[in-house]
């Protein structure tokens, strides 16, 4: 993990909407150079957390600071360094696309015209269409352009790719990887499309019912879980296998397949040697890891 000062620092953040607990003692630090995948079921609190980061929501208790500034005090200097694509897709409907781009660009002195032109060409954005008449996918492309056009240091993407077609999604993911080449930046992506997020994230944050239940380096998370197949040629497997932290297992036909966590590969191999059996270790797909974490 990067040793710089965190861009976002969240401590014991709580938020309630009448009786619903939206955030429950959330702790999170986001450092430059990170692409954070913020995952969780619908209503897990992902959007609420993101909205605290930009100050649209204020904490009931706890603390949330972005660029060293508390949520309620965020001003143009801090917000001008944040790009935000939100799931509601609120844009100025009556404007034409060209007009809206010029309008947003007028706010930022550091608007990147070159990036804008390249993005319009790559993503095939029709600048003469009216914003209100764009399809959901086109709106999302436009919202992404408006969020990245001024080279923000923190890019917050709330369900950014849900309406994009496969080609646009691939382009979008490449763009994110390109943006993160600048190590002073950070990206937070909240999404349900795990296959997309896993291609680019280097850190995983999983939320459930307002709590952060997993906050881990993505590679470490992948290494934490594995699937093992143990078999003995013609013999019988012992009743009690000496493995701990078994999540699930299937037995039959002289073999057992089980999912295990927190056990290093070397330890597994040593145990297999003691049992005098054949062993096959496979990494677990991320979707399965996610299911285990949230279950």
């Amino acid at each position: 993990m990067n040793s710089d000062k965190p861009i976002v620092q969240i401590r014991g953040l709580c938020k309630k909407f009448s009786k619903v607990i939206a955030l429950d003692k959330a702790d999170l630090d986001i450092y430059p150079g990170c692409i954070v995948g913020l995952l969780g079921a619908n209503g897990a609190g992902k959007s609420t957390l993101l909205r605290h980061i930009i100050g649209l929501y204020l904490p009931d208790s706890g603390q949330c600071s972005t660029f060293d500034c508390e949520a309620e005090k965020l001003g143009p200097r801090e917000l001008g360094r944040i790009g935000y694509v939100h799931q509601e897709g609120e844009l100025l409907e009556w404007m034409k696309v060209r007009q809206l781009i010029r309008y947003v660009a007028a706010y930022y002195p550091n608007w990147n015209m070159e990036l804008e032109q390249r993005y319009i060409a790559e993503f095939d954005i029709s600048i003469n269409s009216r914003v209100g008449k764009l399809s959901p996918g086109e709106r999302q492309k436009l919202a992404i352009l408006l969020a990245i056009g001024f080279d923000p240091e923190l890019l917050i993407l709330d369900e950014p790719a849900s309406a994009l077609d496969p080609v646009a999604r691939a382009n979008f993911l490449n763009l994110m990887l390109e943006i993160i080449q600048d190590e002073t930046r950070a990206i937070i992506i909240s999404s349900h499309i795990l296959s997309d997020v896993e291609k680019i994230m280097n850190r995983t944050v999983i939320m459930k019912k307002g709590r952060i239940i997993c906050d881990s380096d993505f590679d470490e998370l992948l290494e934490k879980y594995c699937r093992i197949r143990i078999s003995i040629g013609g013999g019988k497997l012992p009743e009690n296998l000496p493995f701990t932290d078994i999540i699930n297992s299937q037995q039959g036909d002289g073999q057992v397949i089980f999912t295990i966590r927190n056990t290093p590969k070397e330890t597994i191999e040593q145990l297999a040697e003691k049992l005098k059996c054949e062993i096959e270790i496979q990494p677990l797909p991320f979707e399965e890891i996610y299911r285990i974490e949230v279950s």
Partner: protein
Amino acid sequence: MSILTANLKQLYQRRGCWFAYAFFVFFNLPYLFMEFEELKKEWAFVFLLSLMWFYLIGILVMSMQREILSKPFIFCLPNHRTVIWKFIMIVGVAVSLLFSIFFINFYSELDLWQLLPVVFSGFSILLTFYLLGVCFALPRGKCETWGIFVPLILLLGMFYGIHDIFVICIEWIPAFFIISSILIIVLAWRLLKDDSIARRFYSKTVIGFFDACDGVKIQRKRQAIMAEKGEREYETNPKVERYFLKHMQKCDSFGMGRYIWGSLYARWGKPKNGFSILILVFFLVLVFLGYSKVSFILFLFGSTTVYTNIPLYSNMLIFGGRKERFATTIIMVITNMVLVTAICTILAAFSILIESIMPDVTLYGKIFSFQAVDIRLFFIPLFLIPIASIFNLVFYYRYSFLVGTFNMLLFMTMSFIIILITKQHIGLSIDKMVIYIPRPEVIVILLFLSWSLFLAILKYICDRRPLVR
């Protein structure tokens, strides 16, 4: 549960329906408490009024069906298409029958064989106006727009005694209305049984009466209208765009000025179609109020028309923090206030000019003469607009039509209550009040109170509340 039952259940399950019932009761309260003999004297007028109500009910019922038809899943729902006609007829026949009962009271002196055709004729004319509303609410070309002229024709007809003609027709030529109702039933049947109806509404953005509070939907509908009418009509003038962008860029980077100019552009840069209609509405209100001798209400009316998408709540992140949003909201309310005050004052000045040429109108033997608006009351929007804006702040998710209507009703009710109380308890008539109010100290106090309240609520929201729409 059958599809028809599910449709009928809306009548008590939808909150919007209860709003409509409350609206209906509110405007008919005077008649509910009126002595029967007195009501009988006004029968022709009450009957004409009820025709307008039935027309409105027809529009509302069809709006509900339009809304349902626009939902994509309905297209494939078996037998739904036949339910529309059944639903409309069940509601129409039920409410017409219910109202027809009053005929028995009003014509109690007739014997049964004389009474039956009269009641049936009354039922028929009510059903006719109900179905007329249904037909106009079912858009076919310009039909929807012309529908507004039906109540206007009735209103104008009142000056020429159309209500008396209706009553005479019911009593003496019952066949006339019975035939007219058969004709309209055939017309409505043809329109509603049209096979293309489901296809025409499929997945369309339809604004029913009960969607009037849904700002997002209204915006979508506006886009759809734009698409139909062609783009050129809704182009922003390039000069306007350049003007605002130039001012934004003149201000400091990440400064308050840039944010305020940006918000003003988002608010006022829109192509202003429909502005002429607004002026026309104001003018009609002015004429109506002028003859009612309460023309000063023009300023109240103007103040309640301000229901705009205030820049406080926005998910579209442009660098405005809470302080910037606070300042911009104030600027926006001030610009609204200046605009409304200017329009109302110009109209008040105009009313002085036309006062001498406006003819006297005779109704029920009474002579109504036009009275110009007291231009000294120009300050009314200055203190009412901050109060109207509080509704926008608090009911931000319902910022559109409903808040506007609510504002308007509330202000009208409040002003009439104040007028009644002051007249009854202090003996101060409207004329005297109008003279009393424009005193400088009263103006200062009113301005101070309204602006303090508005600013206090705005500050509280900016400091403590979520700013998510």
